[in-house]
């Protein structure tokens, strides 16, 4: 497989913290932005030499909310990345945006700066669901921001959705999907709400103040997303991701196909040659380390063959590429094929729609993570 490395840049700033989010993101640290930009540029220059000769196929600015930064600064950042690394001319360059932080002028600026793909956190078109998620924006903002993106020249836009929050019904989710499809983005991500213990929502669920999402309702919602998006012409290419043909996110596919990537910014992860490492998470610590001229590495691990195999199996199942049945011990897959969770597609085991929802069960049932196998 060709190596197509990517660059991930983490921007930890947000307008407010949403109750469900456990990402490395902070509200109220805006004063750090100028230092943070300089640190990102410096880290890029520190990290780049070891990636000499690798042609970068994608750049992804995530967060946090990258669009809380000034478009000109973001443009300068991309230029630094291009001068430090060998970024391909046709590289996919994605920036995440929050519907509240983008005006048409901003979006035009980002387009101008070289960010050609926009990923927008719509989450829902139901005001009640947005409130349950503590998102500040109204559904109209999503429509307005989306039209602004089109007007600014964006021809590759993703909408992120979250389903299964407290109070959301199947009917409400159907309307959200309908509104999404009506906007006709090139890409849709739909995530079942996951309760993370170390978040305000996680604590509220633990206290019993808010009910945990009902997995059966989420399963129904997943089924509805599969059928509505399929009918609208989107291809299902990862458990939670759909795209028009040719618009699959190359950067994310790089993660899932275990391609190398370098992460810049607080808490960003990197991977290359069976080694995974990650930067320190607290922004202040990240800044201080980079400002001393050191790489801000917070931890690392070397993958043993068994780890690598487990990753390969669960990621292949997630992106519906299938696991060769020759990898799996005889007989282990049979009950799952028989009960309709796996399809044996000419020697490749691919999860069905029901199987996708029970993927953890499949991964463990197929014996991954057991004896170290090295088909890689």
């Amino acid at each position, binding site marked *: 497989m060709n190596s197509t490395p990517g660059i991930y840049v983490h921007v930890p700033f947000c307008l407010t913290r949403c109750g469900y989010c456990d990402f490395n993101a902070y509200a109220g640290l805006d004063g750090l932005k100028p230092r943070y930009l300089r640190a990102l540029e410096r880290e890029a220059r520190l990290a780049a030499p070891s990636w000499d000769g690798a042609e970068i196929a994608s750049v992804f600015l995530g967060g946090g909310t990258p669009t809380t930064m000034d478009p000109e600064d973001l443009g300068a950042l991309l230029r630094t990345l291009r001068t430090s690394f060998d970024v391909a001319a046709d590289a996919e360059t994605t920036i995440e945006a929050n519907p509240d932080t983008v005006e048409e002028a901003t979006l035009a600026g980002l387009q101008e700066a070289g960010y050609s793909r926009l990923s927008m956190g719509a989450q829902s078109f139901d005001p009640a669901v947005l409130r349950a998620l503590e998102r500040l924006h109204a559904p109209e903002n999503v429509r307005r921001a989306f039209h602004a993106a089109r007007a600014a020249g964006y021809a590759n836009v993703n909408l992120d959705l979250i389903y299964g929050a407290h109070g959301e019904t199947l009917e409400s989710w159907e309307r959200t999907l309908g509104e999404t499809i009506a906007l006709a983005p090139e890409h849709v991500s739909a*995530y079942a709400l*996951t309760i993370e213990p170390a978040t305000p929502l996680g604590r509220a669920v633990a206290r019993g103040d808010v009910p945990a999402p009902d997995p*059966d309702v*989420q399963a129904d919602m997943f089924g509805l997303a599969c059928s509505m998006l399929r009918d609208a012409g989107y291809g299902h290419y990862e*458990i939670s991701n759909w795209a028009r043909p040719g618009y699959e996110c190359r950067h994310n596919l790089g993660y899932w196909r275990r391609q190398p990537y370098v992460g810049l910014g607080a808490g960003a*992860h*990197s991977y290359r040659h069976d080694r995974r490492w990650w930067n320190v998470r607290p922004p202040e610590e990240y800044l201080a380390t980079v400002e001393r001229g050191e790489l801000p590495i917070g931890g690392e691990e070397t993958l043993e063959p068994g780890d690598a195999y487990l*990753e390969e199996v669960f990621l292949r199942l997630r992106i519906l590429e299938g696991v060769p049945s020759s990898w799996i011990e005889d007989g282990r897959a049979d009950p799952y094929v028989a009960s309709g969770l796996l399809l044996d597609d000419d020697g490749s085991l691919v999860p069905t729609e029901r199987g996708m929802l*029970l993927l953890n069960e499949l991964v*463990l049932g197929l014996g991954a993570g057991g004896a170290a196998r090295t088909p890689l």
Partner: protein
Amino acid sequence: MTTETSRIRNFCIVAHIDHGKSTLADRLLEVTHTVLDRDMRAQYLDKMDLERERGITIKAQSVRLLHDGYELNLIDTPGHVDFTYEVSRSLEACEGAVLLVDAAQGLEAQTLANYHLARDAGLVIVPALNKIDLPAAEPEQRTKELANLLDCDPREILHISAKSGEGVDELLAAVIDRVPPPVGDATEPLQALIFDSMFDPYRGVITYVRVQQGVLPSRARIKMFATRVESEAEETGVNAPEPTPVPELGPGEVGYLVTGLKDVHQAKVGDTITLAGKLGADEPLPGYREPKPMVWSGLFPADGSDYADLRDALDRLKLSDAALHFEPETSQALGFGFRCGFLGLLHMDIVKERLEREFDLELIATAPNVEFHVFRGDEMTIVHNPAEMPPGGDHDRVEEPVVYATIITPADYLGAVLGLCQERRGELVDMSYLTPERVEVHYVLPMAEIVFDFFDQLKSGTRGYASLDYEPWGYQEANLVRVDVLLHGEPVDAFSTIVHRDKAYGYGKQMTERLKELIPRQLFDVAVQAAIGSKIIARETVKAKRKDVLAKCYGGDITRKRKLLETQKKGKERMRRVGRVDVPQEAFIQALRVDDGGSAKVKK
């Protein structure tokens, strides 16, 4: 030199729990200067940590007090109904008993039970009201009540405060005055009663003995009657209160003997020690009986690989606990373990706690049951384990053990007590008013109904005022059935139980409801059923799992995702398989949990 028998008094203190027995023992040690003030600590005689924590005496102890030229041997008796036999052996070692009654609470069931035991053993009773300095004390009322029971002159009843020491000197004088000295001939062949036996890791088996006749020298070849074991005794001594060697124990004396044995089963409570060879006595003292387990439960290591450790731990506990029985048991659901027999639920709790605490084992205990007699024609089978009971009524009749229960309750709560006993299949024997306010009730009750949560129910129905004591009362036929619990059609032996037919549905419903919450959803619907033979009496369904995947695999943090899967994998490996159903360890522990005194609760 042994003490002249005329200068010896052997006595015990009998009391209801919390009426101040341990405090009085502490005070006696203090006023006789047996323990120096600076060495004094509360509950001095209770040796095990567990005893001190639970405020009960598990093992009997004896201590020698020297007072006014007399040798006073105080024999402390176990304070729980599980250990009635041990109490009776301790009483055999005495000529007198201080009957201690709380001046606020008055007579309680254990007071009566112990009084009857002491009287039947021919002991002189020295009655004393304790805690007379409590604001709630009602000395006059209680004196009347006690005098009535003992049929004695109210002036014979001492008034003391074990806490402050008030009246304790008078109590000692009364013991010397009223309790007769022991009789026994030093020239007769040795007969010494074992009233307690314990295992010391350094010295082996140490018995506490009362010499009835003859002399027990410090070093002698001795013989146990019941076990026919002979041994070279290593040391005789007395607790004063620390072990102090003496050259010999003469008639009427009480002390310890380091037997030279390594296993308490060779020197059992109630057995008689004599000298080996032709100097020995021909007959043992009467009254010995084998300790008999009343309650049975399967103990399994939570981690199957700890089986050998559990076996070693039980072997070691048995060295110091002659009442503990165990035999290997194999459960389809729980793997290899042991079916253990206990004197009662407290004894079971203590053993389980010691295994967990002293041997660092994590255990799953199956629901405790009593011993049933199952008849088929003339053939009787003893059943300790519900799995051994023929399913679906393939037998002629079943008998269960019953007890004779004594309950004392304020008259206001009589209705609640009678209601509870009726509900527990009790048969009223008689009832009498101790005073216009307090009633003594006797019931014959199935032991299975009483050993688990009866006491809790009794306490909550009477605001804590009723007290209970009971003794085994033989076997009685009953309509008993075995209830099985099935997962996806597969019986789970660990959940089988034997109950009265009228209670089968309740048990089945409780277990199926509990398991429905405890068993994680599987890839298919799991039927949770309770059945008598092939007849299903309750059913719940654990619906098939539809979603377990984590939606996001986002950003580059693949490590976290992989670790989550590894954690899940470990969790899965720890599960037990019942047919096709994976059942977590925790589900067995929670489903079988017997809370304080037995009221099982579902943890939410």
